[in-house]
């Protein structure tokens, strides 16, 4: 272990931090002060510089300017191992566990003083003794690939504690957890800070978590510190205004309308995932015209496979899909005839061609129809004209229709994919995590577009890991767990805690 178990965490002052990536100023004279045993939140939107700041602290990036004082002594962090020696540990947003290894192997692997030959009997005893002192326990022999997201998060935290870290940075720790799991884990962390066993820093864009758990907050916007201090003196609106820099746009208006006829029907859909395991296990669901049905669930409960089946990217093992009462075979011709649009998750990886231009990506759905198709050729002029119109209508920020898609920001890639799908005036729209990773303005914009489609009479199936999104948009919410729907509630009766309970299953 790198630090004696009894030592209290150090006081950390990281001041005047500036970091450039090429022409981009990612951090501009930012300071962060961590009291020993504090629970500190770094709040900001995506791209505000939160991760860059802590990665400088963790030795991942070398800041261009800035000094680090630990218990009043000046220190320099050299690489991740240097940070480990100072007692700093980080749980990354994308887990850095090794999926094919067991929990025990992952715990031991992190040791900086890992011996050349690992004596598993000795390590086992140590791990078990360690687990007895910890607030949560895990089965050490299970491969990480079989753990649920919440268990992986716990394992990551256990790993940092096992390695004797005194200052623990958690990057968006609750993005993959149910509300109950999030409260449990953050509650345990807060308890450990109160016992002065640990200093905790969480990076988040969720104001609720800051208010509920943190003692101090630093708010970043566009690479600058725009506010912060003890959380006690701050309210929700203050924090949102600091973070966004403007008032948050109000949610899109919901037209009161009775649900129309049944447009999308799924009956007993079954699909296996890439590992050959049944991921969608007999799912039946109907979506009517003019309603948004929200599918809630923790990531990895078959949502991805379900959407892939609907998009035609994965063949189901069984079940039927009907659109407007007719069997639907997911061919291009049928997608057109029934006006079915699917907005897949992570479109840059999954639903667009990154090396093609924005105009070409916008035309992927209709380049083979007039006016863009001119005989066997594609009319570049019609292609560009369509792109210019959609870029303006959907406020896509791009250098022009000929810019390569991969040069756009995440929000604008998402807007491009959404523009392509919505411009076809879909009767059935399936969207998965449409606002993941986007800033407040882009999120509000995209949610408004989905609501607009619903108000216009489309049947919308919204699969999302963000409960707040579902509570804002959906007319009905169903909960998906291990490939099945385990709960259904109307918008009026929806209760976060009941839904969260079902997301974690009724085991």
């Amino acid at each position, binding site marked *: 272990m790198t630090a004696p178990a009894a030592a209290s965490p150090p006081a950390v002052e990281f001041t005047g931090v500036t970091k450039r990536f090429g022409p981009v100023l990612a951090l501009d004279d930012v300071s962060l002060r961590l009291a020993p045993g504090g629970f500190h939140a770094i709040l900001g939107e995506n791209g505000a510089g939160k991760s860059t700041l802590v990665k400088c602290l963790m030795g991942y990036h070398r800041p261009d300017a800035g000094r680090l004082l630990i218990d009043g002594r000046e220190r320099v962090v050299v*690489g*991740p*191992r240097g940070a*480990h020696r100072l007692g700093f540990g*980080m749980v*990354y947003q*994308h887990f*850095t*566990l*090794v*999926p*094919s*290894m067991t929990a025990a*192997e992952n715990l*031991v*692997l*992190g040791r*900086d003083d*890992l*011996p*050349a*030959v*690992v*004596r*598993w009997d000795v390590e086992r005893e140590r791990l078990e003794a360690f687990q007895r002192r910890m607030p949560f326990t895990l089965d050490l022999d299970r491969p990480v690939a079989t753990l649920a997201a919440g268990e992986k998060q716990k394992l990551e935290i256990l790993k940092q504690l096992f390695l004797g870290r005194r200052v623990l940075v958690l990057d968006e720790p609750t993005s993959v957890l149910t509300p109950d799991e999030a409260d449990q884990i953050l509650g345990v962390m807060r308890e450990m800070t109160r016992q002065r066993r640990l200093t905790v820093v969480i990076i988040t864009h969720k104001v609720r978590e800051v208010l509920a758990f943190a003692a101090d907050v630093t708010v970043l916007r566009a690479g600058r510190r725009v506010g912060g201090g003890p959380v006690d003196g701050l309210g929700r609106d203050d924090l949102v205004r600091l973070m966004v820099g403007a008032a948050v746009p109000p949610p899109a208006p919901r037209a009161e309308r009775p649900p129309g006829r049944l447009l999308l029907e799924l009956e007993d859909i079954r699909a*296996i*995932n*890439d*590992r*050959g395991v049944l991921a969608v296990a007999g799912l039946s669901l109907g979506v009517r015209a003019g309603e948004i049905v929200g599918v809630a669930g923790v990531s990895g409960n078959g949502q991805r496979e379900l959407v892939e089946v609907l998009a035609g990217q994965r*063949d189901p093992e069984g079940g039927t899909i009907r659109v407007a009462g007719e069997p639907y075979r997911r061919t291009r011709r049928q997608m057109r005839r029934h006006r079915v649009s699917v907005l897949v998750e992570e479109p840059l990886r999954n639903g667009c061609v990154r090396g093609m231009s924005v105009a070409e990506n916008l035309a992927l759905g209709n380049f083979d129809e007039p006016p863009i198709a001119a005989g066997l050729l594609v009319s570049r002029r019609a292609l560009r004209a369509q792109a210019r119109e959609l870029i303006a209508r959907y406020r896509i920020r791009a250098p022009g229709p000929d810019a390569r898609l991969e040069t756009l920001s995440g929000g604008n890639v998402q807007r491009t994919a959404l523009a392509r799908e919505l411009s076809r005036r879909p009767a059935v729209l399936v969207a998965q995590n449409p606002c993941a990773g986007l800033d407040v303005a882009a999120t509000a914009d995209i949610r408004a577009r989905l609501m607009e489609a619903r108000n216009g009479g489309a049947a919308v199936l919204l699969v999302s890991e963000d409960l707040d999104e579902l509570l804002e948009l959906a007319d009905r919410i169903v909960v998906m767990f291990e490939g099945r729907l385990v709960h259904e509630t109307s918008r009026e009766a929806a209760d976060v805690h009941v839904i969260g309970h079902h997301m974690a299953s009724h085991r």
Partner: protein
Amino acid sequence: MTPAVELGWWGVPIAVVGGAIRVSTPYLFVSLGETLTEKSGRVNLGLEGTLVMGAMSAYAVAYLSGSPWLGVLVAGLAGALLGLVHGAVCSLPRVNDVAVGIALFLLGTGLAFYLGKPYIEPSAPRLPHVSLGAWSASPQVRAALEINALFVAGAVLAPLLRWALRSTRWGLVVRATGDNADAARALGHSVAAVRTLATVLGGFLAGVGGSFLSLYYPGTWNEGLSSGQGLMAIALVIFARWNPTHCLWVSLLFGGATALGPALQSVGITSNYYLYGAAPYALTLALLVWSSSPKQALAGAPSELSISR
């Protein structure tokens, strides 16, 4: 049926077993080397070239020095050098390891043919073997149980490698690098260095496998020596699910398939000889088709491999 024919038919399985042990050795070394390399998250398709280069250099050195073991060592070092080239080139940004592997495959075989021209005629000392068949009066059994020393080394190495991947720091780091490069980076390890080292060691093993071809069986140096065994060994890694002990069993299976043709010939079945000669290739194809599925990823594949992404 005459007694002689009866004995002859019994000779087929005996010859297949003996052949399996003999022929499997290069498969075993190349597949162990490739398993190690792939566990670190990189593919080296150049091992066919490494195998041929190892065969040539082993033969040349054994002939010049008179010591077959020195030949084995030099073959390993030549393989390590090719591995180092592969590892170093692939550490550059945006280099595709499959393309580099194919280039090195061609470079290795070409270089071996070029440098090996003078050694086609002379004869080099052969590697020793252990005779386990002295108890039997039958010459076929005796011949089958002449176990070559390199096979013994490989058979020990397979479980050793499996243990090392599980219970040494080095093994855990290699697996972490192959399965989640970000995890290895977060632990402060250099992904490029780990992969390069694993490729160098993999190349060393493939080179040693090559020395077997020229110094034991068939035991001469010529340009048609390998006939794609290095490539088949790479396919075999997939079938062995990246498990070193499985590499041993699968190599024996492939060795047995290769020995089928000569074994049948020895009892007088000479028709369709070339068809039997194709048995290992057909087996490779059949096993890969059987063990693959369009619907699911390969179980056990290191997730950083470019073939599994």
